[in-house]
């Protein structure tokens, strides 16, 4: 091989490694800077150098000076994310179950559902805002913003459930039925527990997509902000490292949620040890 260097690696290895290094730099560089600067001393500013190390700016967030409504927006975001999670999980499971039958218009319904993934979020948010205005209902985070966010999380949830169900062997359901389980018992005792790792995945998506949703939420949010909107407002108003402290906190929350989800999936998988080979039979079984 002529293109190989002395230690046997092709040049593409170095090109891709360099690209990946840049990627890491752009992803984690700014985040680490914000993380470090959030521990700025009380007299420090928005940029390096660090003027001592303190938790001053984290305290400043909570005591709510001029640094925006952190506690209010944070709790709203968490509550909204949990509502979105719950609705997304329930609807996605039901839709996933329904789409296993080729009902009339299934394809059209599916494309209509996922089309919202490619619609510009800002315009969709604008539309929702206008709709509420026409209806003379004042927009709020728990109504108009909730709806706008669901247009984003539901298609994702549906797509994940499709992937989850495509690997689900229907013989489990038939076995449950054969052993005398009612449809509800089959769902509760067999289908949902087997699908649980996938369902946790949907929940994780629902929560995190809602938690940092910005474009769709911006216009129909009403008078009280969610956290991402509050941060956005603060970037123009607040000129203290409290902004960084906020960034560090919200990132920590996101990581915590992901860690909880992944840990629970890992625990479930370990409990089942190595998986059975899933050979899904065709409609005739022996076709």
């Amino acid at each position, binding site marked *: 091989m002529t293109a190989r260097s002395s230690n046997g690696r092709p040049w593409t290895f170095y090109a891709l490694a360099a690209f990946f290094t840049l990627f890491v730099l752009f992803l984690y560089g700014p985040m680490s800077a914000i993380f470090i600067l959030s521990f700025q001393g009380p007299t420090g500013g928005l940029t390096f150098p660090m003027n001592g190390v303190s938790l001053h700016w984290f305290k400043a967030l909570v005591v709510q000076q001029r640094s925006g409504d952190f506690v209010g927006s944070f709790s709203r975001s968490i509550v909204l994310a949990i509502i979105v999670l719950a609705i997304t999980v329930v609807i996605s499971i039901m839709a996933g179950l329904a789409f296993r039958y080729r009902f009339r218009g299934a394809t059209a319904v599916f494309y209509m559902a996922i089309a919202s993934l490619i619609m510009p979020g800002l315009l969709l948010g604008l539309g929702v805002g206008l709709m509420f205005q026409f209806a003379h209902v004042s927009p709020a985070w728990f109504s108009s913003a909730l709806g706008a966010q669901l247009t984003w999380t539901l298609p994702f949830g549906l797509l994940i459930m499709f992937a989850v169900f495509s690997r689900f062997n229907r013989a489990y359901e038939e076995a449950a039925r054969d*052993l005398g389980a009612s449809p509800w018992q089959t769902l509760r005792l067999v289908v949902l527990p087997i699908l649980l790792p996938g369902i946790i995945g949907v929940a994780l998506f629902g929560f995190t997509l809602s938690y940092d949703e910005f474009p769709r939420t911006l216009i129909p949010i009403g008078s009280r902000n969610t956290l991402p909107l509050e941060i956005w407002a603060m970037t123009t108003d607040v000129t203290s490292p409290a902004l960084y402290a906020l960034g560090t906190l919200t990132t920590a929350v996101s990581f915590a949620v992901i860690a909880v989800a992944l840990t629970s999936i890992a625990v479930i998988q370990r409990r089942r040890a190595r998986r*059975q080979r899933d050979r899904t039979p065709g409609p005739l079984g022996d076709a």
Partner: protein
Amino acid sequence: MAASGHIELRSVTKRFDQTLAVDDISLTIPYGSYCCLLGPSGCGKTTILRMIAGHETPTAGDIRIGGESVVGLPPVRRGTAMMFQNYALFPHLTVLDNVAFNLKVRGVGKAERHRRAREVLAQVQLDQFADRMPAQLSGGQQQRVALSRALITEPRVLLLDEPLSALDEFLRLQMRGELRRIQRELGITFVHVTHTQLEAIAVADAVVVMEEGRIEQAASAHEIYTLPATAYVARFMGGQNVLAGTVIAVNGGAVTLVDGTGARFATPVTSTAPAKGQEIFCCIRRDRIKVEKLRAPLSSVGEATNVLAGTVHAIEYQGSYVKVTIDVPGREQFVGNLPDHAFLTAPLDIGDAVVARWATEDVHLLTGDSTRTATGVRPLPLEAQRDGVRSR
């Protein structure tokens, strides 16, 4: 729940969209018998099993268990239990909870259902694995768990969908004997779906050979193997050579036929003898063939009856016998299974010119509808193709 596991299929038909999976089948399986549905992939055998189980609904016809129609009833009300291909053990439940599942959905308390599940597991020597997850068990152990899970419902009919296909060869042979023993012990009806000929005749009282959604022959294992009804069954079961020809003489208990190459065969006939000029099929068991090296010139062979000359195509040692495949000019390959001592006293080699002979009384006349097979309308099953039998 049906009191008896006597199964009756009356003109059962099943269509999937445009595909006809089961075509107007009538079949009776007596209570307490072991019945095998045998056939190649897609022949409809699994569909029949699933209709008996209540996992498919017949498009037309009636299914009766213990004398009453069960169409539309859920599986538990039929008194059936099914053992699924690959077992479908619930991966999130322990072995104990898998076996206790039926009791759980019936509302039996935890202590009681675990006690009974342990009893059932003890019967198959799996009680020490009660707290394992299914994925931690070997294939053979999983199969016994699946069996226990089905039998705890106290069924009148146990339906087994390819129960041995997920096991390795050694376990397969061991478990098929075990299944037969369990069926005898319980005295209930077993319906077992398989595509393996030797598995079917090894375990079953009655074998139903299926092809393209229809029954080719339903009879005892011995009869299916030694007295096939049609050329299809003869070829599919694999123990026979199929002979075809035109009747040229009828004399008493035997008729003589001649095939396209001029070879002459004789076959005994019982009740209705075929008429002169009629096209008939018969078969000769592979283990009744004598094969020896050709000494006389070929022309003299052509005149004799029940003699074919050819060259050895393949020799396969099978332990107690040696399978010799012979290329015969102008017809499908001919197979003789020679006892090992006979082969060893007069060994043959590939390429040898040989002559195969057999006695008329070992020939069996095929009576069923065999013309379609002979003209090659139906594709031969894989097993037959592997054995080198070709449709002309």
